[in-house]
């Protein structure tokens, strides 16, 4: 579904990504783990067209999207979530969700149904519909960010650090929901610091180290891999 073929990204003289090959198949949850500065977020940004690639190509459903601007990708079926929550703080929860469905604007019935579905997934949000998003707690903002990207009805969902700064039980909940969304047929590419949690929900994983892929395997085998355990799982 999504394929990166020897993608490199340079920030000036520094090569942030070098020759990254990565594949996400339909229906999978794939996670990208690695230490700080390994290039996880850069990979996501390269896919979204937020940073230019210096070489290599990116394909989505057989079409090349290497230089496609971010807003076009949403129309193609890729929902991105930029690093951080990036919700619209001065708008209400409902307005945030409506903006999430921007590419479907005009389809009122669909948007209404999708908002209901988001509220089903995140009941907390429904209590705060008309509250401005900036007043939500960190966990609620993360939920809103997730709900908002679902509003576009994506085929592929890119998530950058969904567990960032959340209490452990909220982290559990977020990953539970990621699994649920995936069961409904959305393919997911997940970038995570929290390698243990990420590997538990993912089917496959790539381990990034200083800009290139060190290992890739099924999540199960990586969880059991001693080197990975030592480096990323803190055991």
């Amino acid at each position, binding site marked *: 579904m999504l394929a990166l073929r020897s993608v490199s990204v340079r920030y000036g003289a520094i090569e942030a990504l070098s020759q990254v090959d990565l594949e996400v198949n339909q229906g999978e949850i794939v996670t990208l783990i690695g230490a700080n500065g390994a290039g996880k977020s850069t990979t996501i940004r390269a896919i979204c067209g937020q940073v230019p690639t210096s070489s290599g190509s990116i394909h989505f459903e057989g079409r090349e999207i290497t230089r496609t601007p971010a807003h076009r990708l*949403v129309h193609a079926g890729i929902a991105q979530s930029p690093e951080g929550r990036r919700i619209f703080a001065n*708008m209400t929860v409902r307005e945030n969700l409506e*903006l999430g469905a*921007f590419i479907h604007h005009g389809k009122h019935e669909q948007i209404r149904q999708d908002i209901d579905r988001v509220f089903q997934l995140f009941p907390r949000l429904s209590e705060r519909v008309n509250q401005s998003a900036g007043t939500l707690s960190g966990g609620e903002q993360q939920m809103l960010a997730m709900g908002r990207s679902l509003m576009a009805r994506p085929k592929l969902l890119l998530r950058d650090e969904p567990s960032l700064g959340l209490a452990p039980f909220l982290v559990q909940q977020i990953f539970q929901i990621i699994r649920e969304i995936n069961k409904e047929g959305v393919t997911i590419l997940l970038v995570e610091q929290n390698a243990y949690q990420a590997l538990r929900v993912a089917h496959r994983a790539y381990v990034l180290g200083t800009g290139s892929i060190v290992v890739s395997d099924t999540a199960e085998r990586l969880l059991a891999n001693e080197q990975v355990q030592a480096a990323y799982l803190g055991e």
Partner: protein
Amino acid sequence: MRWLALRTLTVLGCLAALAVVSKLLSANLDTYVFLVVIQCGVAMTLAASLNLINGITGQFSIGHAGFYAAGAYVGAAWTVLWQPIVVRHVPLLQLGAPVGDTLTLLIAIVVGAAAAAVAGVVVGLPSLRLRGDYLAIVTLGFGEVIRVVILNIDAVGGARGLTGIPTLVGSGDLAFFWVFGLVLAVVALSRNLMRTTRGLTWLAVREDEIAADAMGVDTTRVKVSAFVVGSAFAGVAGVMYAHYFTSISPDVFGMDMSIIITTMVVLGGTGSVSGSLLAAIVLTALPEFLRFMQDYRMVIFSTMLVVVMLTRPQGMFGHGEISFAKLKQLFGRRAAGGAKP
């Protein structure tokens, strides 16, 4: 269909009410006060149109006088220079006073708006790469460029200005009707925009451009549209000014005018339509009504601005709007508070 009928009725109702108000005011106000009222109307349009760019879309532009000038000069040039030629060659268009004048004014509005909109695109394009203070400098500079270009075109009078523009809007109730009709139009547009998903995208660009992009919003298009629409309205305000005051000169559209319009938007509360309207009235009328203070007038005026910004850093209304619901809430709370011993 019902929606359309309702819309048409609302618009007609507003126009009728406006006509009645214009008759009443022009009959009862003395000439000087009426003049200030018209100036307020022009300022309200300028402030509300800049609010579309600065407030709602968050592109810090401080060269609004440039668009104002482009509209005023092109509109006036049409009326003074081109319209007589067209009429001479096309006998069909020799329509006489009421119909012909209205048609001439309407065309002046269209060409003035178009000229300002083109200028808006030219300034809007750098806004795709610049933000914040950098954009502000470019817009300020561009506003000056427009003024200097006009200064050097002899056909429109250069530094002497363009005089003898026929008062197509008249000096009485008709002028009020046109000027405040324009205010209504820009307010209606802002309000309708804020209620649609498309309007939300303008706000989204202000709030967080990257996130807006990630929602599928073409941020480039939003920014350029904001510049085009905002400057087109400023252009029409210029057409009104030219056809009411019958003479224009480049120094009316200087940098200080740009700064005053920007002040209106910031003082009113960036993004608040009602705020920028109120601030436009205050900033236009106050210097006039402080005239009895003579030399201290501008000192007091400036001090008041500083005091407002110190006590309400977010502007008079912040991001909020005046609405009946809020007024009711406010007075309801006061009443409830007052009832308690």
